[in-house]
C-alpha cells in the first residue's frame, strides 16, 4: 500500500466524516452545558426509589422551570440519582428546592453547580484563544525544527481532529462542559505528537535518500517505518481511555469520550493527512518554481 499515492482516498474518508458534522455544527450547533450558557445543575441521590413524576411535580410546584428536563443518571440497590437542570437559581430557590426534594425520601446532594452567564462567555473566549495561541506556537516551533510547510500541514491535521470531534458531538448532541475544552486541547497535543514523530522520520530519510528517489516514495517509506509505533501508541492510549470510560465514573464520561474520538482521529490524520498534505504543498511549490 502506498500512502501518498492513495491520498485522495484518505482525503475523501476525512471529508465523509467531517462534512455531516460540519453541517450539523452550522444547523444544530453544539449542545452547550451550563458551563457555557450559565444555569444550574442539581444532582441528588434518593436512598429509596422515587419516580420521575414525583420529582417533576415537586419542581413544578415551586414554580421552577427545568431547562432540559429531569434525567435519571443512575440506579443502584434501590437508590436513584437524578440530574435536574434549571435556569440559574437564586440561593433561596436552590435551598427551597433541596428542602422540597428532601421530603420525597432521604436524599443526599451529590453536586450542585451554579454558573453565571458571564463565566460561560469567558470560557468560550479563553478556549478559542488557547487553541489559536497553541496553533501559532506549534507552527513556530515546527518551522524552527522542520519547515514552515510542515507546520501548516500539521495544523491542518489538527483542524481535522477538532472538526471530527466537534462534529460528532454536534451530530449526537452530546452535552459538553468545560472539560470538553481541555479534551480538545489534549487531542491537539496528542495529534501533533503523532505527526512530529512521522515528520522526524521523513527529515532523517531525506538526508540519506538517493538522488533519483521520488519525494512521495520517501514519505511513504517513512510512514511505513513509523506505522508500528503509531498503532502501538494509539492502542496503549485507547486501553487507558476505555478503562476510564467504563470504570471512571459518570463525571468524566464526556471528557473521555471526546478524547477517545480525538485520539483515534489524531492517529488517522497524522498518518493519512499530515504527510500527504505536506506532499501536496511541496508539489505546488515545485510547480511554481517550474512555471
Amino acid at each position, binding site marked *: 500500500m502506498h500512502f501518498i499515492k492513495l491520498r485522495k482516498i484518505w482525503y475523501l474518508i476525512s471529508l465523509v466524516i467531517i462534512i455531516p458534522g460540519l453541517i450539523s455544527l452550522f444547523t444544530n450547533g453544539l449542545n452547550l452545558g451550563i458551563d457555557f450558557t450559565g444555569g444550574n445543575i442539581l*444532582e441528588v*441521590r434518593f436512598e429509596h426509589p422515587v419516580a420521575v413524576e414525583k420529582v417533576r411535580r415537586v419542581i413544578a410546584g415551586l414554580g421552577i422551570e427545568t431547562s432540559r428536563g429531569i434525567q435519571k443518571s443512575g440506579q443502584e440497590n434501590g437508590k436513584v440519582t437524578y440530574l435536574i437542570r434549571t435556569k440559574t437559581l437564586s*440561593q433561596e430557590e436552590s435551598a427551597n428546592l433541596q428542602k422540597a426534594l428532601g421530603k420525597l425520601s432521604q436524599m*443526599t*446532594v*451529590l*453536586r*450542585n*453547580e*451554579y*454558573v*453565571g452567564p458571564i*463565566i460561560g462567555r469567558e470560557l468560550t473566549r*479563553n*478556549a478559542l484563544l*488557547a487553541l489559536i*495561541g*497553541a496553533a501559532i*506556537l506549534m507552527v513556530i*516551533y515546527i518551522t524552527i*525544527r*522542520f519547515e514552515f510547510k510542515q507546520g501548516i500541514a500539521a495544523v491542518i491535521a489538527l483542524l481535522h481532529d477538532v472538526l471530527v470531534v466537534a462534529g460528532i458531538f454536534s451530530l449526537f448532541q452530546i452535552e459538553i462542559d*468545560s*472539560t470538553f*475544552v*481541555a479534551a480538545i*486541547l*489534549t487531542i491537539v*497535543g*496528542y495529534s*501533533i*505528537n*503523532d505527526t*512530529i*514523530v512521522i*515528520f*522526524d*522520520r521523513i527529515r*532523517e530519510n531525506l538526508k540519506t535518500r538517493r538522488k533519483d528517489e521520488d519525494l512521495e516514495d520517501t514519505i511513504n517509506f517513512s510512514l511505513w*517505518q513509523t506505522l*508500528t*509505533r503509531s498503532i*502501538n*501508541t494509539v492502542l*496503549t*492510549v485507547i*486501553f*487507558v481511555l*476505555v*478503562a*476510564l470510560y*467504563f*470504570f*471512571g*465514573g459518570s*463525571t*468524566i464520561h464526556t*471528557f*473521555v469520550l471526546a*478524547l477517545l474520538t480525538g485520539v483515534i482521529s489524531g492517529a488517522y490524520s497524522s498518518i493519512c493527512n499530515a504527510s500527504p498534505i505536506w506532499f501536496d504543498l511541496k508539489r505546488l511549490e515545485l510547480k511554481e518554481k517550474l512555471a
Partner: protein
Amino acid sequence: MQKNKMLQIAGLFVVIILALLVSFTPLFKSNEFLNKHLPLVKNINLGLDLRGGVHVVIEAKGPPEEITPDKMKQLRAVIERRVDQFGVSEPVIQQQGSRRLIVELAGIKNPEEAVRNIVKVANLEFKTEDSKTVLTGADLKDAREAKDPASNKVKVDLTFTPLGARKFAEVTAANVGKTIGIYLDGRLLTNPVVKEAIPSGRAEISGGYESLEEAHNEAILLRSGALPVKVGIEEMRTVGPSLGADSLDKSQQAGLMGLIAILIFMLMYYRLPGTVAVFALIIYAIIVTLVFLGLKATMTLPGIAAFLLSLGMAVDTNIIIFERFKEELRTGKSLRAAIDAGFKRGFAAVFDAQVTTLIAAIILYFFGTGPVRGFALTLGIGILVSLFTAVTMTRWLLHLVVDSGLFKNLKYYGT
C-alpha cells in the same frame, strides 16, 4: 564484571519494589506511625471534586473606578477572616483578574449556607430615631454569640473599640428615653430604648435569633467586618463528599485497569525491553508522585486523567525507542551498538514530539481555570518526567540487562 552487573540488577529490583510499596500500597496500616505518612500517595492534596467541597467565584460589583486593587485587598482580607471562622482546613482564596475572587472550601458541612454568609456585605449601623447613623461596624472590636442565662434567649454581645465606646457613651447619653436601632445591611435587628448612658463600651443584639448557630454566624459576620464592596456569586460548584469519594474510587480503579492493560501489552509485544520499560514506568509513576508532593500540587479528577495520559506518552517514548532499537538490530548491529543508536535516533523524535505537546499544556495552564489548570499542570509534569525517565532510566536499565550477559538470544528482544 557480569556478576557485578547481575548484582546491580538484583539490587535495583529490590529498590524499585520497595519504592513501589512505600509509594502506593496500603501495607502500613498496622503501624500507627508509618500509617500516618505512608503510602506516600496518600499525602497528595485532593481537589474538591475528589473529596467534596465548594468552589465559588465571587465578583465585586460596581463601576470599574470603584473596584480598586486596594478595595480588592480589603475584600479578600474580610473574606479570609470569615472563612477562617468556619474552621475549614486549607481554604483556597485567590484573586482572579481585577475583580474576582475564587474561594474553595473543602470538607464543610453546609457549604451553601457558608457561601451565603461569606458574600453578605454585613454593613452594621446604629441609627438614632431621626435616622442618623451614629456608629458602624468599623467601631466594633468583637462580637460573640451568647445565651442570656435569665431569659434563655439567644443574643450577640458586642464590644466596641475604645473610640467606639466613647462615641457610644456620648450617643446613649444624648438619647436617653429614645430608641437606637441596630441595622445589618439595612435590616432592623433590634430597636431598644436607651434607659441610661452606657459607658462600658458594650451592647447586645437580643431577640430575633432562632438558634445559637444563627447567632454564631451573625457574630462571625460582625467581627470580620463589612465587605468594602457589594459582591455577587458568578459561579458555585458544590460536590458532595459521597460523590467525591466515589469519583476517587472509580478513577483509581480505572487507572489500575488501564495500567495493567498497558503493562501486559508492553510485556507481550516488546518482551525483554518491554519488561525494562515496565520498570521504567514504575519509576516514572513514583517520580511523578514525588514531584506532586514536592510542589504541593492538588490532584483533581482531570488531573488523574492527565496522569494516565502522560503515562501513555511515557509508554510512547519507550515504544519509539524500542522500535528504533529493533530496526538497528535488524541491520546487523551488536546489542550494545543497537541500544545506543536506537536511543540517539529515537530521542530526536521523542524530544520534538514532547515539546510540541508541552506547548499545548503550557497554553492550557495559562488560559485555563480550575479543573483545566489541574489537567495542564499534571500533563506538563508528566511530559517532563517521562522525557527524563525514558532517556535515563530505560537506557541505563537496558544496558545493564545486556551487559549482564543473561539474555543474548535476540528472541528476547522481540525481533
